[in-house]
């Protein structure tokens, strides 16, 4: 058994003509906080539904906790907690009753554990109100609570911060970090708000139009100091010069700066090249993309067919 | 998978069970009670020889009486109850066609243009009027065979249009028969009952209640001997009956589909019972 908690292999889902998920291969490793990123409609929820056996893949395979979901889903589901899209509850039951009922389907949870979990998500005070009276944020927390209650080793949260206020987002982020650090859980969370998960995730997958654009560490994606920002007196000419070397990726991004990806300590080479052509370089600064910028870049490249 | 197989097995088991328990088998149980021989037999016929609604004269037509006589002679009943004769003159013509083999009497006419009649094969029959609902039915008392006990046949015709009248008439006849409880009384004729109430919306109509109760009242003292024979009149109606004493067993009950001539709307019902 590999150390992958969730593995998909060329997972595909078509709804009629529309391809919602297109040959997607992912691997979520144990003890990761794995960010699953993409714009609305990118196919995140559909992938998660297939991972949990809610939707049958058109093609491809899912292995969850080592089990083939097409064959033996229950053993894996018993060790997985999930919240798929906005959580839904039995409105005329209290939060606590909802938790107890849902937990019973996973083998039951003692009352003490229900209390602890309610405490953990900050709902203890309102646990005995009918869910009907809950705000959006409270439902979201209850959704996380029901995912945690059966004591899983792997938690899948689909847009857990969706629709929360900044305070709520911060708290949720804090909670997810505690899940990994204190409870040693593996967490996969999807989001379309990249800055929210940037500091949280160890590894991310970025999808667009159902296709995988990137899977790996956040640092590798955002540059990690390999990108430099140059100030040059004649930027257009500088770009042409840099374009001659295929190992360098340079762009202007509509600014007066030039951005160059120059891995392996080749910053000095770039400088030397420009100076040799008579260009005057007045500033060289290491640049780190935000996740959002990296994402925009990737999506842009993918759509241009690069 | 196991659950689905169980469901499939249950479904199949139910089909096998449905096949095993044959609903039709039960229906045959409702037929004639006694199919064995023995005892005296009595063959009765009842026939409303009048014409269908909308004809100029809905009573019997004298020109048809030859055919009526032929049907009687062919089936050779011990006694016949006829309805809707115009009067005793028509009866006389019919008895003539029957070649003196039958004797008969028409009911006393009262406010109506048509009368019942009763015909008996044996000699020595006594005839009497049976007052019923302001009118008269007619009865014959006779011995089917010299060594047989006496029986009574009442020829009756209940109002075609008013259920309340039908009920009153029927109850009078039943009460008359009960008063003759020492004798074996048969009641035959056209009762015009509307009993087939498949449409539940008829719950509160008087007609249904009256007819149902009149019929019920009859069945407290008689058996409906022609039940299995089917419809006796046009429009799929079974409105001509032979009511037999409970002890009588039905040997045969048949509606003669080919007997009617002209614009007759009824078919004769022939019932043979063991006494």
């Amino acid at each position: 058994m590999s150390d992958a908690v969730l593995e998909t292999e060329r997972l595909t889902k078509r709804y009629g003509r529309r391809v919602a998920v297109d040959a997607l291969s992912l691997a979520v490793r144990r003890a990761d906080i794995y960010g699953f990123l993409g714009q609305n409609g990118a196919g995140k929820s559909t992938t998660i539904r297939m991972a949990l056996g809610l939707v049958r893949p058109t093609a491809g395979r899912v292995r969850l906790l080592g089990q083939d979901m097409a064959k033996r889903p229950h053993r894996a589901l018993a060790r997985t907690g999930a919240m798929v899209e906005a959580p839904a509850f039995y409105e005329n039951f209290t939060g606590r009753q909802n938790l107890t009922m849902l937990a019973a389907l996973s083998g039951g949870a003692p009352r003490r554990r229900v209390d602890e979990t309610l405490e953990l998500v900050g709902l203890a005070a309102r646990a005995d109100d009918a869910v009907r009276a809950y705000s959006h944020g409270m439902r979201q927390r209850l959704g996380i609570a029901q995912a945690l209650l059966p004591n899983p080793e792997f938690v899948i949260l689909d847009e857990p911060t969706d629709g929360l206020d900044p305070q709520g987002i911060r708290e949720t982020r804090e909670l997810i970090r505690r899940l990994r650090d204190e409870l040693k859980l593996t967490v996969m969370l999807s989001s379309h708000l990249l800055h929210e998960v940037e500091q949280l995730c160890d590894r991310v997958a970025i999808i667009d139009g159902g296709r995988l654009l990137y899977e790996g560490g956040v640092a590798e994606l955002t540059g990690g100091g390999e990108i430099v920002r140059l100030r040059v007196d004649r930027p257009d000419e500088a770009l042409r010069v840099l374009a001659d070397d295929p190992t360098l990726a340079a762009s202007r991004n509509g600014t007066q700066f030039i951005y160059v990806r120059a891995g392996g300590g080749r910053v000095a080479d770039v400088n030397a090249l420009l100076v040799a052509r008579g260009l005057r370089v007045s500033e060289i600064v290491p640049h780190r993309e935000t996740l959002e910028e990296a994402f925009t870049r990737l999506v842009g490249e993918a759509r241009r067919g690069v | 998978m196991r659950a689905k197989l169980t469901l499939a097995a249950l479904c199949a088991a139910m089909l096998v069970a449905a096949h095993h328990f044959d609903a039709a088998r039960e229906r045959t149980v409702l037929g004639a009670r006694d199919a064995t021989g023995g005892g005296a037999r009595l063959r009765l016929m009842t026939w409303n020889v009048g014409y269908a609604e909308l004809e100029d004269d809905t009573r019997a037509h004298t020109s048809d009486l030859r055919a009526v006589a032929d049907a009687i002679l062919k089936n050779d009943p011990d006694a016949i109850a006829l309805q809707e004769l115009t009067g005793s003159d028509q009866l006389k013509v019919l008895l003539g066609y029957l070649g003196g083999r039958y004797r008969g009497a028409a009911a006393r006419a009262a406010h109506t243009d048509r009368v019942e009649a009763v015909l008996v094969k044996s000699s020595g029959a006594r005839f009497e009027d049976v007052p019923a609902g302001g009118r008269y039915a007619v009865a014959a008392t006779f011995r089917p065979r010299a060594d047989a006990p006496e029986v009574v046949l009442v020829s009756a015709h209940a109002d075609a249009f008013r259920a309340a009248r039908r009920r009153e008439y029927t109850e009078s006849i039943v009460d008359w028969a009960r008063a003759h409880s020492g004798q074996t009384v048969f009641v035959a004729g056209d009762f015009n009952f509307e009993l087939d109430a498949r449409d539940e919306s008829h719950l509160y109509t008087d007609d249904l209640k009256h007819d149902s109760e009149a019929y019920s009242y009859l069945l407290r003292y008689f058996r409906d001997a022609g039940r299995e024979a089917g419809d006796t009149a046009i429009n799929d109606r079974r409105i001509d009956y032979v009511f037999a004493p409970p002890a009588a067993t039905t040997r045969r009950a048949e509606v003669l589909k080919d007997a009617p001539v002209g614009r007759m709307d009824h078919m004769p019902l022939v019932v043979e019972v063991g006494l």
Partner: protein
Amino acid sequence: MFTLLRIEFTKLARSRGFQLSFAALAGFVALMLWGFYTYAERKTGGQAAEQFRYTYESKSYFNGLTFALYSLVFSFSLLVPVFVAATAGSQIAGEARAGTLRMIAVRPVARVSLLLSKFAVVALHVLLMMAFFVGLNLLVGLLFVGWGDLQLYPGPLNLVDEPGRIARDDALWRFACATLTGTWAMLVVAAIATLLSVVCESAAVATVATIAIYLALYVVGRVEFFEQLRPYFFTTDMDFWRDVFKPQIPWQSLYHYASLCGAYTFGALLAAAALFDRKDIKS
């Protein structure tokens, strides 16, 4: 499975439809009672209260058991199916629409178990409804008219074609039987509604579709035209439930039609299970 049953029953018992079904049946009994009173009043010239019992009792045509039988027969065909269809039709489609189905379906529970426990709970609801309705009718009959022998006449109920009588104690036992046969017959409607609940996107569509199918067959089955088709309608087979009120219970035919109904029920459930197992839960 037991946990599932317990949870499903809790959910059902708390639902509005469940409570409404009993209220509506009680309302129907009140309506029947009112109908019988006004009928009696018209017949007796305005002294209903005193003459009501007399009118009927004197002819021993009508008593509390007759009332219960009429009320039961009339509501069974047209009223009970509505609630059965509503409860069963919302089981899957309702939860799918609300989104709670996906909350359950990501738990380690076999979908077929979930479906069957939902159906079992619906069946329990039907049984409770029948028991409640029969009990209430008998009680109202006892209080307002009094029990007696059950007299049967050819006519409205289309039960017998010769008058019959069932002794009081025997008749009470027949009512108990009718609770069971009625429930068994109604399970056909429940199973079809469950099947449609799996297929349809919303509870309302599943419920209305079930009622539409049921009523169409029920009505068509009563039109003379379609006499030849009648044997192929499940609504015709469901009629077996009231055979227990015939003076001589036709056991052969009762078993025959009960088995047919069972075949319909399990067949529809099998289809529902197969479809639900492969269904994409997209809501």
